[in-house]
């Protein structure tokens, strides 16, 4: 076989078949996907179905701590988890740029396999297309996911309520800085890695101690500030955050200083922020801290009735400022 992806690999003919059988199925192998039917047929437990989709166009496709494949699987597993759903299955669609080295594709698929195995969520179907050189940035990925929401769970961005405690599952800024550190023109050395991780285990643990999580999201693009603003806006409440309670790894803080970035706007891929009634907060925090991806959990603020739609930060030196949503792209600055 060729060492790079060619247009023929996406055309549905012999080359496509060989790509799927010899490459894709080396990494993605289960009863359902082996059937190679036009659709995956699944049996789901009765209940509300959660259904989500996301596309991934991250650049660079390989970054410290991960790559676009693992990122995509974890991202979709997490989107399901954020509404309290137990993920059942995901699909994987690839749009490959002509000329992509086969070795890169293998690396990405191995990453998909490993992420799927860790989360315990199989890839039950997918699709591969190839586009001409220049029409994609090496690889674009789409994952869709399906899950089941247990009875009694009602988690939504519009459910946050005054008095709720805001809990963050760990340090912010790790993913965005890991990715930026590899971008041409702003190289710096750090052993920071992306925090991409599946959070379904963490969420299951939380739901094991309470059914009353009001709101929950993973603060991906736009960072923690954007996510908090969305919830404040949709729930019609104000949020007050204590800057000194927000965990930030020293290397992330330093990189943000170097580039003139505000860590509250830097993307995260393995973190969640949950809004729980005050009386449940300690129990939830306790169980989170006992999990692999929640050991750095911290109560970072409260929901208030004042200033609805607005997020206020009590700064580390005793001042106050408003944490607005991100506008446009986060760019490094020298001034």
């Amino acid at each position: 076989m060729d060492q790079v992806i060619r247009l023929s690999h996406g055309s549905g003919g012999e080359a496509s078949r060989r790509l799927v059988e010899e490459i894709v199925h080396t990494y993605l192998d289960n009863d359902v996907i082996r059937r190679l039917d036009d659709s995956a047929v699944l049996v789901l437990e009765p209940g509300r179905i959660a259904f989500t989709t996301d596309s991934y166009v991250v650049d660079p496709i390989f970054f410290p701590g991960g790559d676009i494949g693992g990122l995509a699987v974890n991202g979709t597993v997490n989107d399901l988890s954020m509404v309290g759903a137990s993920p059942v299955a995901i699909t994987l669609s690839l749009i490959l740029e002509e000329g992509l080295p086969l070795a890169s594709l293998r690396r990405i698929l191995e990453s998909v396999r490993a992420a799927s195995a860790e989360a315990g969520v199989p890839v039950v179907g997918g699709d591969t297309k190839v586009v001409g050189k220049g029409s994609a940035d090496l690889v674009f990925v789409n994952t869709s996911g399906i899950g089941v929401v247990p009875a009694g769970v009602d988690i939504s961005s519009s459910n946050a309520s005054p008095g709720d405690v805001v809990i963050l599952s760990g340090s912010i800024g790790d993913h965005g800085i890991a990715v930026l550190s590899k971008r041409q023109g702003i190289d710096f050395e750090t052993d920071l890695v992306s925090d991409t991780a599946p959070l379904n285990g963490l969420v299951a643990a939380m739901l094991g101690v309470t059914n009353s999580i009001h709101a929950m999201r993973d603060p991906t693009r736009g960072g923690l500030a954007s996510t908090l603003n969305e919830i404040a806006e949709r729930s019609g409440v104000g949020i007050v955050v204590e800057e000194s309670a927000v965990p930030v790894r020293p290397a992330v803080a330093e990189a943000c200083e170097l580039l003139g970035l505000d860590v509250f706007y830097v993307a995260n891929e393995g973190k969640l922020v949950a809004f729980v009634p005050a009386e449940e907060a300690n129990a939830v925090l306790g169980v989170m801290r006992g999990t692999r991806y929640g050991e750095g959990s911290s109560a970072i603020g409260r929901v208030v009735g004042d200033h609805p739609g607005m997020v206020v930060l009590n700064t580390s030196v005793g001042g106050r400022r408003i944490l607005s949503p991100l506008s446009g792209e986060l760019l490094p600055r020298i001034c």
Partner: protein
Amino acid sequence: MKFASEFRDPALVRTITLNLRKACRGRWKLMEFCGTHTVAIFRYGLRSLLPENLILVSGPGCPVCVTPKAELDRAIYLSGLDSSVIATYGDLVKVPGSEMSLAEKRARGADVRVVYSSYDAVALAERLPDKRVFFVAIGFETTAPSTAAAVIRAEALGLRNFFVLSLHKRTPPVLEALLKRGTSVEGFVCPGHVSAIIGAAPFEPVASHWRRPCVVSGFEPSDVLQALLMLVRQLEDGRSEVEVEYARGVPYHGNRNALKLMDQVFTVTASEWRGLGEVEASGLRLREAFSPFDASAFIDRDIVSLPDPPGCRCGDVLRGDISPSECALFRKNCTPENPVGPCMVSSEGSCATHYLYGDR
């Protein structure tokens, strides 16, 4: 972070805040000139700590904000040339020219890259011998020496495909222009890193002739508050001097080495500032000897810029005459998503910081 964390100590900030409240008897209006100060003040929520009778306005020290559209249009013109690569700091990429920003040009196929250092732009030219790399150099005197170093390096490497479009501006002339025009500001928090290069001495005419005290300030929360304290004490005492709060960063007579390098590569020229018009001796352009590296040579036509949109009051905001919320477009037609003027585009522009961080 050493030499930073100590200056962010909440207890220290509390001490200085109390001192400031005690010292500030009269009503005073001060200006922080530098965009990085504007960001630091908002980031740490320092306005919420100031006494009621101390007013702080933001001045024209944001190089992005004061770059007139015509200069941006020149950079955008270069991005449309064959085999051109634009290398610039992140600050400039989103600023709208007459038609679009460099970011939007990039979306339409132009090769626009963000660099962290001028040397990265030189390295780009080395790596891409078939391309013409145009380094769009913005910034004040803090940054100009690094552009000078890049030009000298390009020359030493014998590069024929590296060019600089100098949009550098100088600080003291614009302070003078502001004062000549008339301003109600009574004292200035002066830019600490500009002064790391030029020293504190160039601000002496502001203090002696224009009778406005100047304190050269660092950027940590305790630095800014201490500088405000020093200014207030001068005003309460009836003094008008240049003082340096940022002793660890500022040699009174400047960095002679960096100044020499700047002088070798650049010559002073008149330059236009948004909101202030043309200011004598306020810009830097490449000297004749370095004309092979001057990107201006590629701009072979007059670039006509569209006038500023009606209602845009960036000029008034930049001079400290109005606060962002007094502009009718603020938050309505002019937001960071859809900026009308540069004060909203630049992350350290007054309007963007007011929008993001809130008033008080």
